[in-house]
C-alpha cells in the first residue's frame, strides 16, 4: 500500500486538503483504511498521525476493518420509515443473518445503515454493492439475499 499511496500523491499532490480524496482512494483500492496505514498517510501528506486518525474516525464512510464481500446499505431515514422501512430493516437483519452495522461471521455480507439516498418517494431503499434498489418488500429482500449469496 505504501507504493499505492506514493503513486497517488505524485499524481494528485500532497497538500493536506487531499486527505479525504486519498482516504477514498485507499478504501476503493483495499476495502478499508487499516490502522497500520495511518503513519504512512501522515508522512505522505506531512500532517500528524493524530490528524489522520481523527479524520478516519470522524467520517462514517471510512472503515478500519475489512467489509464483507457484499455491502448492503439500507436507508434508515424518515421518508423510508414512512414507507415501512422499520419493518423492512428488521426483516433484512433476519434474512441476511447479520445485525445492522455488522459484517456476517462468514464474511459474506455487511449490512450498513445509510441516512437517505435521495430516493425518498420510492422507499424503502438500498444500495446493493452500489446499485440502487427501490420499493423494497419481502420479495425484493429475497432477491437481494440471493444476489449477495446470503
Amino acid at each position, binding site marked *: 500500500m505504501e507504493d499505492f499511496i506514493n503513486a497517488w500523491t505524485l499524481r494528485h499532490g500532497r497538500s493536506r486538503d487531499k486527505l479525504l480524496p486519498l482516504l477514498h482512494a485507499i478504501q476503493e483500492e483495499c476495502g478499508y483504511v487499516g490502522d497500520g496505514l495511518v503513519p504512512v498517510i501522515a508522512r505522505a501528506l506531512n500532517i500528524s498521525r493524530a490528524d489522520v486518525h481523527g*479524520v478516519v474516525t470522524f467520517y462514517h464512510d471510512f472503515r478500519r476493518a475489512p467489509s464483507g464481500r457484499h455491502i448492503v446499505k439500507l436507508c434508515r431515514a*424518515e421518508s423510508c420509515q414512512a414507507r415501512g422501512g422499520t419493518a423492512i430493516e428488521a426483516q433484512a437483519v433476519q434474512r441476511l443473518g447479520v445485525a445492522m452495522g455488522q459484517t456476517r461471521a462468514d464474511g459474506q455480507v455487511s449490512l450498513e445503515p445509510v441516512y437517505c439516498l435521495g430516493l425518498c*418517494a*420510492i422507499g424503502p431503499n438500498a444500495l446493493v454493492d452500489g446499485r440502487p434498489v427501490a420499493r423494497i418488500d419481502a420479495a425484493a429482500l429475497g432477491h437481494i439475499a440471493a444476489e449477495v449469496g446470503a
Partner: protein
Amino acid sequence: MTRVFISRDMASVALGADDVARAFVAAGCEVIRTGSRGLFSIEPLVELESEEGRIGYGPVGPADVAAVLDGSHANRLGRVETLPFFANQPRFTFARCGLTDPLSLSDYATHGGWKGLEAARARAPQQVVDAVKASGLRGRGGAGFPTGIKWQTVLDASSLAKFIVCNADEGDSGTFADRMLMEGDPYCLIEGMAIAAHAVGAGHGYIYIRSEYPFAISTMRAAIDACAHLIAPFTLEVREGAGAYVCGEETALLDSIEGKRGQVRAKPPLPALQGLFGQPTVINNVLSLAAVPFILAEGAEAYAAVGFGRSRGTMPVQLAGNVRHGGLYEVGFGITLGDLVNEVGGGTASGSPVRAVQVGGPLGAYFPPGMFHLPFDYEAFAEAGGLIGHAGITVFDDSVDMAHMARFAMEFCAAESCGKCTPCRIGSTRGVEIMERIMARREQDSPRPDPAIPAGLAKALYSRSPAPAQRGAEQEIALLRDLADTMKYGSLCALGGFTPYPVLSALDYFPEDFVAPAPAKEAAE
C-alpha cells in the same frame, strides 16, 4: 429509427430504467438517456418522439416494448407536459431536466444554455450582483439568506484568491432536488457557478457532493471535463463527502474540503470574508446557484414576478415518504402545505389518512393536517414553529408512532453531532434515553401492537432504560422540554439547535403518542 427518451436518474434506475433502456436498444431503437421529469409514480417513463411531440408511457417494464412501440400500451400518458402534475409548474430551474441528454453540450446550448453566462460576462461584476439582488433570490439550502447580499460581501472583500463552493451535501431525508439537478442538468449548476465566479472575482470552485450520491458525482465530473473550455479561466473540481451529515453545515463543509474533521466553526468570521483556506468564499446550495442562469438570461424581474411576500421566485418542492405522486414539483412560493400534500401529491400512497408531515428534513417540525392552511413561505413556517429548509415534505399515514419519530430525531442528532458543543453532543444522547423511558413506560402501562414493528422487537427497542419509579410520565415530559430548551439556546449550529423542532412538534401536536391511553371508561349504567 425511432428515438426513445429514458431517464438515467438514480431513482429511475432504482425502478428498473436500465433494463427498460436495454430492451428498447435490443428492439432497434435509438435510446437517449435523460434526467428525470421528477414524477416517480410514472417512472420508468419512456417517451417516444413523434410528430405531435414526445409521447410518454409509464411506468414501463422491459416486457412492454412492443406495446409501447405500436402505441397500444395501457399506460399511454400522451404528452408529459400536459399531465396535471406538470401543467402548473413554472419550471425555471428544472426547465431542461428530463428533456435533454445531461452531458450533451449541444442539447444544453439549444435549450437556452450559456445565455446567462454570456449576459453576465457582458456586464460588470457589480451589475451581476445587482441583478441577483433584484431577483430576490434567497439561499435554497435552508436558511433563506439573500444570495445577492452574500455575493456583495465577497465582491467587496479584497484578496488575491477567492473561491466559489457549491454545497451539494443534501443530507436531509425527503430531499433530492440537488441530486436530480446534478444528474439531469449538470451544466446548469456549472453555469451558475461560473456566473458567481465572474460576479465576485473567483478563480476556482469546488462542488462538495455527498458520497451517497454516486451518480451525481460521476455526472458532475464528466460535465466539468466536457465544458472546461467554456468556463475558463474559471476552474472547478468535485470533492466527495464521506458520510457525515454535519458537513452540510457551511463551515463544517469548508473544514472537510480542507482535509479536516467536519466540525462547525464559530461565526464570525463569515465564510464570505474568511472562508475556504481563510479566503473570501461564496458558499451556496446547488439550487441557489442553478437559479442564477435563468435570472441573468431572462431578467431579475421575470424571476421576482413569481413568489409570495419576501420569498421570491420558485421553489423545487420535494414530495416524499408515504405519498401517492411523490417527486419534484417546482412551484412559486405561497401554495399551501395542504395543496402540496393532497392536490399535487394525491394524499398517501397507502390510502390511509395523512397523520403527519415533516417539512425541512430531520431538523424540521412535524405538522398535523390541521396546519395544512400554512402557505409555503420562509416567514410563515418560522412563525408556526417550523422551517422550510430544503423544501422536502415527508408524508406519514396514520400508522406512524410519533414518539418513535421523536426518539429517532434525538438518535440522529447524537449520531451526527460534530461534538463541538455539549448541549448537542451530550444532550442528544440524554434525549434518546428520556424518549426510551417515555416509550418503555407507555408499553408497560398499555402494550400496544405497533403495526410498523414486529412484535417482540418493540420491547427490545424501547425497554433499554427502565423508568425510574420515582419519575412520573409528566415529569419525564417536563425533563424533555427542559432539555430541548437547552439544546435550542445552547447549541452552536442548527443540528443541535433545531433538533428540538421535530421533538417538540411531535409532542405538541401528537401528545397521545407519548402516554398510555387512558383506560376506556366503563359504559354508564
